[in-house]
């Protein structure tokens, strides 16, 4: 087994800007506009087709440090979520009685957001989605760590997106880039042994990985974007 480093983390979390948890509006002005991924990937084709989870994940992915081309071929994507693509499922189900929309149906899989970030960044390692009520992000992180440790891939983009229907709670995304130590990448050594049970346990979401680092004052670089009607705060952490 190889040693693995946590090379970078990215948090997209705008709850600080909109008041208490559970607020029904995502933006200060009350709008529910999602991030425009062209802010991060100007050459992105047909951004209008993107579902909400993909928009958030791409927004977070745009803040990652650049990956060398040689590493992209062997970088996997492991994303967790509690709701998967529920909002897209609902949108597509609403079209069933009238005229089912193929463009919507193609995005009704929990792997969609991971596939989008793979396509945009050219990541060709393994791809996996973990969808469960408790700790899906941690579980995804463990899966990615294991694949790097076993040598299946040299790097893993792991994380969690929380993009529930608007009335439920505000969205957030965490991404963590893990790299095999043999590649001499910067970052802290990471050991993963966590394995959840799939039972509700809201105290273990992946945001804590980033939040703990923010509290410690180390590796912190905070970026705040205010583009168009979409505002949120971002914290990118790296060695």
């Amino acid at each position, binding site marked *: 087994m190889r040693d693995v480093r946590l090379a970078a983390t990215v948090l997209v979390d705008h709850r600080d800007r909109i008041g208490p948890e559970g607020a029904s509006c995502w933006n200060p002005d009350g709008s529910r506009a999602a991030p425009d991924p062209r802010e991060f990937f100007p050459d992105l084709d047909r951004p209008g087709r993107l579902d909400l989870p993909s928009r958030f994940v791409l927004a977070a992915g745009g803040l990652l440090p650049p990956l060398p081309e040689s590493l992209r071929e062997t970088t996997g994507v492991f994303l967790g979520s509690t709701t998967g693509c*529920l909002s897209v*499922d609902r949108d597509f*189900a609403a079209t069933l009685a009238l005229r089912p929309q193929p463009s919507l149906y*193609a*995005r009704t899989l929990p792997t969609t957001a991971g596939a989008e970030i793979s396509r945009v960044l050219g990541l*060709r390692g393994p*791809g996996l989605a973990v969808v469960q*009520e408790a700790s899906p992000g941690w579980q995804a992180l463990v899966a990615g760590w294991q694949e790097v440790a076993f040598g299946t891939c040299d790097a893993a983009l792991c994380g969690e997106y929380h993009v529930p229907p608007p009335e439920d709670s505000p969205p957030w995304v965490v991404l963590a880039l893990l790299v095999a130590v043999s590649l001499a990448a910067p970052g802290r050594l990471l050991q993963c042994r966590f394995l*959840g049970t799939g039972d509700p346990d809201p105290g273990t979401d992946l945001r804590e990985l980033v939040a703990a680092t923010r509290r410690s004052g180390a590796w912190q670089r905070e970026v705040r974007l205010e583009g168009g009607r979409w505002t949120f705060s971002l914290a990118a952490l790296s060695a």
Partner: protein
Amino acid sequence: MVDEVPRISGMAACCALGGDVRSVWRNLLEGASGLAPDRTGTVVGAMPHDPWDADGDPWAACIAGVARRAIEDSGADPARALADPTTGLVVATTKGDIEGLRLPGRPVSLGPFLRRVRTAMDHRGPAELVSAACASGAAAIVRADRLIRGGVCRRVLVVGADRLDPFLVEGFRCLGAMAAGPCRPYDDEREGLSLGEAVAALWIEGGPGPGVRLAGAGQAQDAVGMVRPDPSGGGLARAIRQARTEARGGPVGAICGHGTATEANDAMEAEAFRSAFGDSPPPVFGIKGATGHTLGACGTLEALVSAMALEAGLVPPTAGHRAGSLGLDICRFPRPLSEGRILSVNSGFGGLNVALILEASR
């Protein structure tokens, strides 16, 4: 880290070919197909099951029943095995219980599905629900391998499960991916897939003992598009090469192909097989002309069929296939398996590819 290659020591399935593995295997060898028109006239592969509108949680109960049978097949006691904290559970699905979107009072998200399945089977150990589109069932087997070889679990129950629903039928229909009649994998006249439903369970253990072994696994993404695969088959070919490397080379006696019978998938697979094996890839068989495309379950079901083929030393025929010019040796009739290894591959939306090499007991 555990050195022993994990082995499949128990299996069970319910699909359009039957409610137990013996029926499934017998019907497959006879070239039978479980595809038939449903009440709307759509050709599907429906599995034998109790009514879904029964009291309680009939879908979770169905999955738990198949899972317990897989454990029994190994000779273990299901209740004791599932209560053991070193027994892991990996559930593979694409939609879980999508019917919940239409029914009041039912969970509508995939998230609670794992809890429902665990409750139905009274599982106590580590658990996760994974999805890799139509490669989910194979990806779950890779997860089981990692959990055992990483020392997290001593044994893992892998369950692939997806069931028919108008959401899926209309979805694939609006994509133009459905065949009007029974699907015809790798055939020149293929016109699309037939949907099916299945629950397939594998009881995978570490350590020495009898059972088909997971000799190697590979996973790779196309990073090309959401629906159409990379026409060059590049992602699948890389997954196959990775699996063969992990299995330390050696000949492969047959390939259990994904074989959805869509124009794009089957052509992509042919390119991938040639890229990985040269101009004469091993003989290919596919089961979706008999079971339908069972989505998140198909990777587990096809690994199960591959394991049965290894135990029997026979390659099953490809129901629905008559003639093809993809340059592949498609099995139309049962034939002896020439080598003790079978490659099973799956590819899914988003360009996800998984390859498994299964090996007969020595």
